[in-house]
């Protein structure tokens, strides 16, 4: 096994592991077969599993996700790829009205064990319609589970949990992390949905992050350590189930909270998280809660502009300093 693997390789590895253990797992999506996916996240799957299990589709997002739903209701575990998360808007009926509701509105008569995986987020200069972090769209809909890994090992472990789940799971793969490297996942690695990871221990300030903002938070924490500010960094890994308990437990040590999101401040997931902290953890706090999220504008194209919109380590470090001094 290689010493390190890329996040991109981990996506295909995570899917392949589940396809080896369960022959009802089938993939569908645009360009996922011979081409191996536009982000090369499905490379090798067609060769190993053949066209009976790796299905290229037309550019038809409603048909892709709707067909995945029908298959999931009837004995298959589909893994549907939506190439860019922005395109979820093209099939949002299925994510908002159909998949999360059908079990409930039928009184539990059907289950929908499917995965919708999609390349999410910015930082690569793809402009306003190919760069959004839209995990908050899914977070607005009761009935969807949401995973967003930040490391190659978590990609494999969360993919396993998502595919094995009898509930619908949206897996947000971060396109800015595809080239990043990390430890390979151990054999049979499964990361339970809804279990946050404390990725750096600290005592002064808790930084809660998700996917791309985890390396951002860790970079800020490293810088702040030089100033004797000790940050605890929590990688939520999932938005639903939301691991509030891990956040509150951290605040018992630090009493200060910064939440770092890539989705827009307006309607971002951090709003829900901090409202719970304000409600249930107010007595733990010694300072105001701070949210750092994307600016409430469409994602611009030019690097100099995009850098203004997406949270970076400088912004996180500056905010933590003000909190630590509070």
């Amino acid at each position, binding site marked *: 096994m290689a010493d390190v693997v890329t996040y991109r390789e981990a996506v295909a590895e995570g899917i392949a592991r589940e396809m080896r253990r369960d022959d009802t797992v*089938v993939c569908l999506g645009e360009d996922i077969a011979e081409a191996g996916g536009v982000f090369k996240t499905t490379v090798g799957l067609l060769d190993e599993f053949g066209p*009976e299990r790796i*299905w290229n*589709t*037309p550019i*038809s*997002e*409603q*048909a*892709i*996700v*709707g*067909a*995945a*739903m*029908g*298959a*999931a*209701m*009837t*004995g*298959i575990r*589909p893994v549907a790829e939506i190439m860019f998360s922005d395109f979820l808007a093209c099939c949002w*009926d*299925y994510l908002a*009205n*159909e998949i999360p509701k*059908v*079990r*409930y*509105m*039928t*009184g*539990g*008569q*059907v*289950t929908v*064990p499917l995965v919708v995986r999609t390349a999410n987020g910015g930082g690569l200069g793809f402009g306003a319609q190919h760069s959004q972090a839209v995990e908050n769209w899914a977070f607005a809909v*009761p*009935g969807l589970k949401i995973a967003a890994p930040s490391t190659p090992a978590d990609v494999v472990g969360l993919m396993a949990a998502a595919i094995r*789940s*009898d*509930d619908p799971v949206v897996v947000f793969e971060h396109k800015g992390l595809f080239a990043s490297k990390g430890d390979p996942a151990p054999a049979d690695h499964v990361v339970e949905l*809804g279990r946050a990871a404390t990725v750096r221990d600290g005592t002064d300030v808790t930084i809660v992050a998700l996917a791309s903002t985890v390396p951002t938070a860790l970079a800020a924490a490293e810088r702040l350590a030089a100033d004797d500010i000790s940050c605890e960094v929590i990688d939520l890994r999932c938005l*639903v*189930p*939301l*691991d*509030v*308990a*891990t956040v509150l437990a951290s605040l018992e040590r630090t009493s200060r909270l910064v939440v770092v999101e890539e989705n827009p401040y307006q309607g971002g997931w951090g709003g829900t998280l901090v409202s*719970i902290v304000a409600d249930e953890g107010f007595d733990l706090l010694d300072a105001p809660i701070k949210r750092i999220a994307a600016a409430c504008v469409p994602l611009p194209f030019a690097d100099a502009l995009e850098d203004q919109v997406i949270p970076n380590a400088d912004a996180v470090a500056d905010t933590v300093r003000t909190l630590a001094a509070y």
Partner: protein
Amino acid sequence: MTEPDLLAMYEQMHVIRKTEKAAHDLFMAGLVKGTTHLASGHEAVAVGASAALRPDDYVFATYRGHHHAIARGAAPEECLAELMSKATGLCQGKGGSMHLTKASSGMLGSYAIVGSHLPMAAGAAWSAQLRGTGQVAVAFFGDGATNIGAFHETLNLAAVWKLPVLFVCENNLYMEYTPIGTVTSVPNPAADRAGAYGLPGHVIDGNDVLAVHDAVAGAADRARAGDGPTVIEAQTYRHYGHSRSDPATYRPAEEVEHWLARDPLPLAHSRFTELGVDAADLDAAEQRAEQTVAAAVDAAKNAPDADPAEAFTDVWADGGSAWRT
């Protein structure tokens, strides 16, 4: 088909008609809340199609779906109880009129976003193809759904993948309050589009239960043989308005008169007697239907109300609704 088959179809058509009348009356009496989209007039489509399917085939319907639930085995009592927010309803009060479902007999739901279930039916057919079960899936939809993107995406995908799926349009001439012909580029909104996807498209008399049966049986055979999807456009007419609040005054009197003269129930009566079924046996079947629905209304009225605790069940496969630690 045998005489008992024909009598069973006739009785089922009357069960549907009388259930819809009961739903209407219960609504007027204030015992059904929200809205209803009644299928009186569409009975031949559901009953004819269901009689042509295997018990393990899949059916997906729309918010106008009471007839499909009953045709696939839902009891009138559990349908009416669902409309009346009762604990004994098909969905324990979490679905209502627009979401009647009887998954245990392959009726995989009624969907209230127009056209949304066509991809699901294709997916169920894909699943059957992958598992090699020989099942087919049927999507029933209205004429209005033929102008939705999901209809076109699904016909293409189903054709390319040669899926064992049937697309059965119940063309009742009106997209809600608007004549479908005034907002559609072709005269037969479903069948005329089939050719664009290389699929056969048939226009049939949707009020003739035997015509529906034969068309669906042929398409199902074709699908099971691996020859792919068929589009069937069943011409029919609804006897009530679009929904509870619609008196349907936009429909010309002579058009209504024309279609009421082609009511699928008397039509079935004459078709079946021509085939040698005794009229007295048909009338007895109608009487049984009357008794069945009267008993269903009583049972639904006397059933306990939906349990408030049900509001927090069945979101997840573990039966619960927890979203956080």
